C-alpha cells in the first residue's frame, strides 16, 4: 500500500468543475506519473471549499497551502515547483485585497477567518466518493454511539438541548419535531431529507451533498432510530446530477459496510434509504407538497394540520428535515449539545451556511456562527461590493424573504432578527445589490419567480400574485399611480393573511420589504416616472449633453430608428418619440456626451 507524503485536494464541486477543475486533476495525475511520484503524491477530488469566486481551488496538505484559480498551466507549475522542488508558487496564492499580501493558509484568508464550519466541516477536506475517508474523520461514530450507548429519548433530548432549528427556512426546533414524530403511534414511520433546494442563488444543500454525502445518511439513520422509522427518502431535484451521483455511491458504500440496511452495527435497528427525484418545482420544497410528489401525486401543498409528524408520507408519521439540518446532527452527538449551543445567539444556536451571490467580491459559500452581522459577512468575508460600488441592499430568504437596507447592516443575523426586519432566514441565500439595482425591479423579479412557481391551488397565490405582478409592471413601465402603491400594500398583506401554504404566505415579502425600505424609489417611478437606478428601460430617457457633443454624427449613424438628428459639428438632439432606448448611441459616443436618466 502506497504511503503518500503529500495530498493534492482539488475541488470537485459544481462551481469549480464548471471553471475546469476536472482538467486540473488530469494534468496533476499526468505530471505526477511523469515525475514518477505515483506512490508519493495523491490527488483527491473533494467537495466544495466554498470560495467559488476563486475556483478552481487546490489545497496541498500537509503543507496547508491554498492555491486559487488554478488552470492546467498553473497545475504543471505547481507540480514542478511545489511538489518536486518544495517551493510554494506565491503568485498563485490568494492575495489580501488591500495589502496585496499573498496568503498561503486558508485560515489567514479573510473569507475563512470568521467561519466556523460544522455542516461544511468535511467539504473540501475528504473525498466524498470514499466512505473510508469519511470514517477516518469520525464518520459513522455518531451512529455507533447512538446505537450502542443511547436511547432514542436521550438522543432527542440532546438534539433539543442543542437548540438546533430547521435550516430549511422555517426555523422550527429539530428536537421537538423528532419528538412529535416519535410520539405519533404507527406501525410505520418515515424519515425524509428535503434536498429540494430551490431559492434562486442558493446552493448550500447541493454543496453538502456533493462534498459530504455520508453525514446526511448517518444523520437520517440516527433520526430513524429516534423516531422509530426504518425507511428514509432523500427528495432531491434531478438538476443536481453530481449530488445524486455521489449520494448513490455513498448509499452503496454504506450498505456494503453494513452501515445501512438490516441490523446496523449488530444492533436491532435497520434502516434503508432511497432517492426520490424531483422535477425542480420550487413548491416541492414545501413539506406537504414534497410528500405528495413522492407519492406520485401533483406537487401541491395540503392544509396543515395534520402535520407530517402526525400524518405524512402514505399517511404515516414522517419527519422531514433539510440537508443542512441533518449535516449538524453528527457533530452534536459526538461533541455534545453544550458545545453546539455555546455557538450562536440566545435563540439561534450553532452556525448557518450562506450562499453569497450578486454584486459581491467573494461569491461563494460561507458558514458562520449565528449572530455575526450582515456587515461582517458582506464586507469581511464577502470582500465588499464589486467594483467599489455602493451597497444598497441584501436579499435574504429567497422569494419568501425581503431586502435589507444599509441601516440594518449591523443587525446580528439570526432567525428572529431577520423576521423582525421583514425578511427571513430562509435556506440561506444572500444576494447583494448595489446602487445599480432598482429595488422595484428586484421585487418584480422575485414576484415573477413566485408566479411561475406557484402551484395554482389557492386564489390569493394564483390570482393575487399575478395581479401584484401586473401592478409592478405598470409601475416599472411608467403607468403607475399612487393608488397602485396603496393597492400593492393592501393586496400584499391580504395574500400573506390568506394564502394556503408557506410559499403563498411569504410571496409578497420582497414587494412589501422593498416598499418599506425603498419607498422613495417607488414614488420616483410613479410620480417622476424615473428609475433612479437606471434599470427600468421604459422609464429611461437618453439625453445629449450640449457641452460635450462635438457633432461628430457617430451617434446618428448608429441609431437604428434615425431618432438622432443634427448638423455636422453642431449639437445633436434625440427625438424621444422615435427613440427605442437601445443604448447604441451611448455605446458609440467617444465624448461621453450621451447620458440616460
Amino acid at each position, binding site marked *: 500500500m502506497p504511503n503518500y507524503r503529500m495530498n493534492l485536494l482539488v475541488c470537485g464541486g459544481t462551481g469549480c468543475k464548471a471553471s475546469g477543475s476536472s482538467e486540473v486533476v488530469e494534468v496533476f495525475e499526468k505530471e505526477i506519473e511523469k515525475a514518477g511520484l505515483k506512490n508519493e503524491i495523491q490527488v483527491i477530488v473533494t467537495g466544495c471549499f466554498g470560495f467559488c469566486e476563486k475556483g478552481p481551488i487546490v489545497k496541498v496538505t500537509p503543507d496547508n497551502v491554498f492555491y486559487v484559480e488554478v488552470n492546467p498551466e498553473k497545475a504543471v507549475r505547481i507540480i514542478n515547483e511545489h511538489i518536486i522542488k518544495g517551493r510554494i508558487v506565491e503568485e498563485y496564492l490568494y492575495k489580501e485585497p488591500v495589502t496585496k499580501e499573498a496568503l498561503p493558509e486558508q485560515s489567514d484568508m479573510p473569507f475563512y477567518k470568521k467561519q466556523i464550519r460544522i455542516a461544511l466541516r468535511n467539504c473540501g477536506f475528504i473525498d466524498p466518493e470514499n466512505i473510508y475517508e469519511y470514517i477516518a474523520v469520525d464518520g459513522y461514530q455518531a451512529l455507533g454511539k447512538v446505537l450502542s450507548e443511547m436511547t432514542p429519548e436521550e438522543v432527542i433530548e440532546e438534539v433539543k438541548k442543542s437548540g438546533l432549528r430547521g435550516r430549511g427556512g422555517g426555523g422550527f426546533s429539530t428536537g421537538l419535531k423528532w419528538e412529535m414524530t416519535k410520539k405519533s403511534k404507527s406501525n410505520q414511520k418515515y424519515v425524509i431529507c428535503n434536498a429540494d433546494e430551490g431559492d434562486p442563488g442558493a446552493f448550500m444543500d447541493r454543496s453538502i451533498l456533493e462534498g459530504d454525502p455520508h453525514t446526511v445518511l448517518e444523520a437520517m439513520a440516527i433520526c430513524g432510530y429516534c423516531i422509530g422509522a426504518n425507511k428514509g427518502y432523500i427528495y432531491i431535484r434531478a438538476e443536481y446530477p453530481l449530488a445524486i451521483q455521489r449520494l448513490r455511491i455513498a448509499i452503496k458504500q454504506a450498505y456494503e459496510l453494513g452501515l445501512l440496511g438490516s441490523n446496523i452495527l449488530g444492533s436491532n435497528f435497520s434502516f434503508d434509504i432511497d432517492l426520490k427525484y424531483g422535477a425542480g*418545482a420550487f413548491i416541492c420544497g414545501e413539506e406537504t407538497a414534497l410528500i405528495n410528489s413522492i407519492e406520485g401525486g*401533483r406537487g*401541491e401543498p395540503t*392544509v396543515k*394540520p395534520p402535520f407530517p409528524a402526525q400524518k405524512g408520507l402514505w399517511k404515516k408519521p414522517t419527519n422531514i428535515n433539510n440537508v443542512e439540518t441533518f449535516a449538524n446532527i453528527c457533530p452534536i452527538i459526538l461533541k455534545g449539545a453544550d458545545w453546539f449551543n455555546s455557538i450562536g445567539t440566545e435563540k439561534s444556536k450553532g452556525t448557518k451556511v450562506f450562499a453569497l451571490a450578486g454584486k459581491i467580491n467573494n461569491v461563494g459559500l460561507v458558514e458562520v456562527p449565528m449572530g455575526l452581522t450582515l456587515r461582517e459577512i458582506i464586507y469581511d468575508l464577502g470582500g465588499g461590493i464589486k467594483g467599489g460600488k455602493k451597497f444598497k441592499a441584501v436579499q435574504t430568504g429567497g422569494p419568501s424573504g425581503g431586502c435589507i437596507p444599509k441601516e440594518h447592516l449591523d443587525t446580528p443575523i439570526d432567525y428572529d432578527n431577520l423576521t423582525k426586519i421583514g425578511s427571513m432566514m430562509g435556506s440561506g441565500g444572500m444576494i447583494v445589490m448595489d446602487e445599480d439595482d432598482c429595488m422595484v425591479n428586484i421585487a418584480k423579479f422575485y414576484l415573477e419567480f413566485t*408566479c*411561475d*412557481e*406557484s*402551484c*395554482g*391551488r*389557492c*386564489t*390569493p397565490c*394564483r*390570482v*393575487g*400574485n*399575478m*395581479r401584484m405582478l*401586473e401592478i409592478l409592471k405598470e409601475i416599472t413601465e411608467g403607468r403607475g399611480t399612487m393608488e397602485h402603491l396603496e*393597492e400593492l400594500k*393592501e*393586496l400584499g398583506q*391580504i395574500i*400573506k*393573511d*390568506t*394564502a*394556503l401554504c408557506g410559499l403563498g*404566505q411569504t410571496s409578497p415579502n420582497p414587494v412589501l420589504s422593498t416598499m418599506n425600505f425603498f419607498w422613495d424609489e417607488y414614488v420616483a417611478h410613479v410620480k417622476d416616472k424615473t428609475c433612479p437606478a437606471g434599470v427600468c428601460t421604459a422609464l429611461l430617457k437618453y439625453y445629449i449633453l450640449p457641452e460635450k457633443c462635438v457633432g461628430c454624427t457617430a451617434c446618428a449613424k448608429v441609431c437604428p430608428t434615425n431618432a438622432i438628428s443634427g448638423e455636422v459639428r453642431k449639437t445633436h438632439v434625440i427625438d424621444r418619440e422615435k427613440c427605442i432606448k437601445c443604448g447604441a448611441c451611448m455605446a458609440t459616443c467617444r465624448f461621453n456626451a450621451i447620458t440616460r436618466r
Partner: protein
Amino acid sequence: MINLTINGIKVSVPEGTTILEAAKKANIHIPTLCYLDLHDIKMVNRTASCRVCVVEVEGRRNLAPACATEASEGMVVKTDSIRAIKARRTVVELLLSDHPTDCLVCEKNTQCQLQQLAADLGIRNIRYKGKMSTYPKDLSSESIYRNLDKCIMCRRCETMCNEVQTCNVYSAVDRGFETVVSPAFGLPMIDTQCTFCGQCVAVCPTAALTQISHVSKVWEALSDPDKYVIVQTAPAIRVALGEKFGMEAGSIVTGKMVAALKRLGFKKVFDTDFAADVTILEEAHEFIDRLQNGGRLPILTSCCPSWVKFIEHQFPDLLDIPSTCKSPHIMFGTIAKTYLADKMGINPEKIVVVSIMPCLAKKYEVIRPELKHEGLKNVDLVITTRELADMIKEAGIDFKSLCDEDFDDPLGESTGASVIFGTTGGVIEAALRTAYEWLTNKTLEDVEFQSVRGLDGLKEATININGQDIRIGVAHGLGNARKLLEAIQRGESQYHAIEIMACPGGCIDGGGQPYHFGNLDIVKKRMEALYTEDRNKKIRKSHENPAVKKLYEEYIGEVGGEKAHELLHTHYTKREKI
C-alpha cells in the same frame, strides 16, 4: 366536547368539528365556495383552496380557512371582523378578476355559486384587472361542455371524479396563473375514459362544466312539418322537474309534465317506464336463463350508459357479465321506430324520438354506432330535466297551474316496478318482483324489498327462491361499483345479480337534474317520491303491464326470442384506459 367562542357566542362541539360546522351550530353563516360536503355519499371537498371562508382566530398569525380548520378548546373565532371581511372580499374580487362577466347569457345565470357569493357579499366593483384565463372550449362529447375560462379551481370536479367515481379523468395541470383542471395531455373529453356521468357538472359551482345543450335542435324538430316528434320521459324527471318551478323537492309532477310536453308541441308523449317494464322482462329472462343453464353469474344490469362505459374502459375483461339489454330509453326508441311506426302507419324516417333524461351520459349514448336500427338512430335527441325546464319557461307555460294530463297510448302505460328505476336499488327490485314469480309460479305478496333501498353505497339482499338463496348486490357511484367488479375479477363475488348505477343515489341525482349543490335532502325527497309513485300504481310488476304484453303478442313474440334480441339487445366494446 370542545368549547369555543365564535363572534362572542359560546359553542360546544364534538372533537374533530371544523370551525365552519361549529359556526353553523351557532347560526353563523360563513360563506364558502370550494367546500362541498356530500355527507351521505361520503364525499367531502375540503381543498381549502378558494380561501373565501377565512376567519380570524385569536393568537393565530394568519387567517384560518373555516372549512378545514378544526375547532380547539378555548378557541376564539371572529368571522365578521374587518380583517376577515376585507380578506374575503378581496379573495372574491380576485376570483372575479379572472372570471368572464357574461353572467346575463351564461348557462349558469342565477344558478352560479360565484355569482351568488358576489351578490351576498355586495360586491359592486372589481378593483383588480389584468390577464384573464382563456382556453379552447371542449364540445367534443355531446355531453359535457368544458369552458375553463370559468373554472375557479375549486377542484370539486376532481374530487368527485377521482375519489367518488374513481374515473380519474381530471387533475390539475400547469402552474401558477395557468393552473387548470384538465384530462391527461389536455385530451378532449370524448377521447378520455370519462363515462359522462355528469357528476362533475352537478358539483361545479360555475359554468366551467355544463351540459352540451340540444334544446335548439328540439325546437327545430318541433317546428319541422315533415317530422313526427315524439317524446319519452325517464322516471326520475317527474319527481325533480317541479323544483325548477319553485315547487317543493319531491313533488310528483307527472301530469303537469305531460301537459307541458303536449303544449310544447310533441305529437305524442310517452313514458320511458313502459320500456323499463320491457327491460325487466328481458333482463329477468336473461337472468333466469343464466341461473338455470350455467351461464356466467353474477349478471349485471345495463340500463345506465355511464356505468356501461365505465366497465368498457376499466374492466374490458368482464364484458360478458353485464346483461345485453339495451337501456330502457334506447329500447323505447327502437320500439317507437318499429312497432309504433307500423301500428300508426308512419314512416320511421319521419319520427324524431326525443328523450327527457336526468342524465348526461344518455346524450353520449345515442351517438354510439351500434344503437341504430335499419340505419336510423334509436333515439335522436336527449335533453335533460334542466333543459326541459328551460324550454317550458321559454314557451311561456305557467307550469304550476297546468292541469294533469295522461301519457299517450300505447307506450305510456307503465307499472310501479318501472317507476323505481329512477333510484338506486330500483332496477333490481323491479327485476326481483318478476323473476320471483316466474321462477316460483307463485304470487309475490310483499313487493317491497327494503334492504336494497336507501343511500348506502353498497347494499345487499338475499332472497330465497325455490329453496335457493339468491344473493343480490347493489352499488351506486362508480367507486362502489369498482369494488364489486374487483371482487368479481378476483373470483370472490358471491352475488347472483348486481345492479349498478353510475350516479350516487341513482338517476334521481343524475348529472342532468336540477342542481342541489350538496343538499342531499333534496335527493332523498326525490327518492321517497318515486316510492310513493310506485305505491300509488295499481300494477306494480312489470310482467303484468298489459301494453307490454300486447307488444310481445303483436310484434316481438317470445321474451328473449329472436326478434327480442334483434331489437332490444346490444353488445359492448373494449376500450382503453386514458
